[in-house]
């Protein structure tokens, strides 16, 4: 089971490295969206400080949608998915491998870039670890839920748009608790409750999403 997980993880990371221009697109999109807000709402410091957590979180959410439809598309087109479904190992293991690789290549860069961008909004330095931690807990949930959506819309015409419509409503709780964690810390109530809820969400998504994803992929192959 671990062999298949590691084989898929290694292959997907290698593929991301060979097509690394695609990864920069996600990161560049995140940075640009965040930077657009000061132009739109004006450079008033207090206002920027107030909207910073929400802006960063919404931008991260949109950026993680950007490459989501490609998660299984290539493997579906070239027949790899067929072979993976015929593996004698449980489907959950390779689905998990794909999602972990996907998060490492698209989610992790956002987590790393976010504190730097938060400084642009003059966010209090003490809130930066909270922001990073909330993104580190939240973006894997986005990847896991997104993988289920990507599997459900696989092979559907106009799947990219449908995927966004399907998955964005599910991202709302993550957004509320993610952005809420930073705001709660800034408000002085402490971020623990929000972060615990995010952690619980991650545990739940980890336990359920790979199974749902594997089932959806089986249906997509029919």
């Amino acid at each position, binding site marked *: 089971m671990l062999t298949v997980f590691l084989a*898929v993880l290694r292959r997907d990371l290698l593929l991301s490295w060979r097509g690394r221009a695609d990864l920069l697109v996600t990161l560049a999109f995140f940075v640009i969206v965040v930077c657009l807000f000061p132009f739109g709402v004006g450079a008033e410091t207090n206002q920027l400080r107030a909207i910073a957590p929400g802006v960063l979180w919404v931008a991260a959410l949109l950026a993680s949608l950007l490459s989501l439809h490609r998660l299984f598309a290539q493997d579906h*087109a070239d027949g*790899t998915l067929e072979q993976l479904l015929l593996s*004698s190992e449980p489907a959950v293991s390779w689905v998990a491998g794909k999602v972990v690789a996907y998060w490492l290549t698209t989610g992790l860069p956002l987590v790393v870039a976010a504190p730097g961008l938060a400084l642009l909004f003059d966010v209090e330095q003490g809130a930066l670890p909270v922001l990073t931690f909330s993104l580190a807990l939240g973006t894997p949930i986005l990847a896991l839920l997104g993988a289920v959506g990507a599997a459900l819309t696989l092979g559907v015409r106009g799947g990219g748009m449908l995927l966004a419509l399907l998955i964005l409503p599910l991202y709302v709780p993550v957004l509320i608790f993610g952005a809420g964690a930073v705001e709660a810390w800034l408000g002085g109530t402490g971020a623990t409750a929000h972060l615990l809820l995010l952690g619980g969400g991650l545990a739940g998504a980890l336990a359920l999403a790979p199974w749902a994803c594997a089932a959806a992929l089986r249906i997509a*192959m*029919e």
Partner: protein
Amino acid sequence: MLAVSELACLKGDRLLFRGLSFSLEPGELLRVAGPNGVGKTSLLRLLAGLTQPEAGEVRWHGTPLARAREDFHRGLLYLGHAAALNDLLTPLENLRFACAAAGDEAEETACVRALERIGLAAQLDLPARVLSQGQRRRVGLARLFLSAARPLWILDEPFTALDVNAVADLAATLSAHCEAGGAVMLTTHQEAPFARAPRVLDLGGRAC
């Protein structure tokens, strides 16, 4: 080994075949024949467990497929229309991944040997996107040399895009697998020099 009873397959709202019964025993080479669109590929995908039959049952050593999935997939090698190659990876990386994904332990040296044997010694380090159709097909077929332990081979159009020598080599490999007690099921529109004439299952005569 594989027993099929009263199988029916629906594609979209079109019935491809129904009431299909046959069995496949060790040592047998079965060729599924029939004109295009009669349901050969659908039948193979169904037997491989990728799709569910509309009616009827497939049994693997007497157990229905749904309950013997893991055991069945351990004993099955299915090569479909698509070669399952990623264009950014080399043939060697593709082959090693295909083996690992299927749950086989495949050493790098064994994979290199398999690729050399199928005639890709010079292409080991090239990305798959520069390979010709025939060479891509060969990378997929290299798995045959690493899957001798899997008794049932289901191959969809394995001879497509291969040159005359490769066709003869592949036919010999398939015949040898049957000699060794394996079973092969394939579709092809091409005559191939098998050691023993394959049994033919003609779907064309029974289309509904």
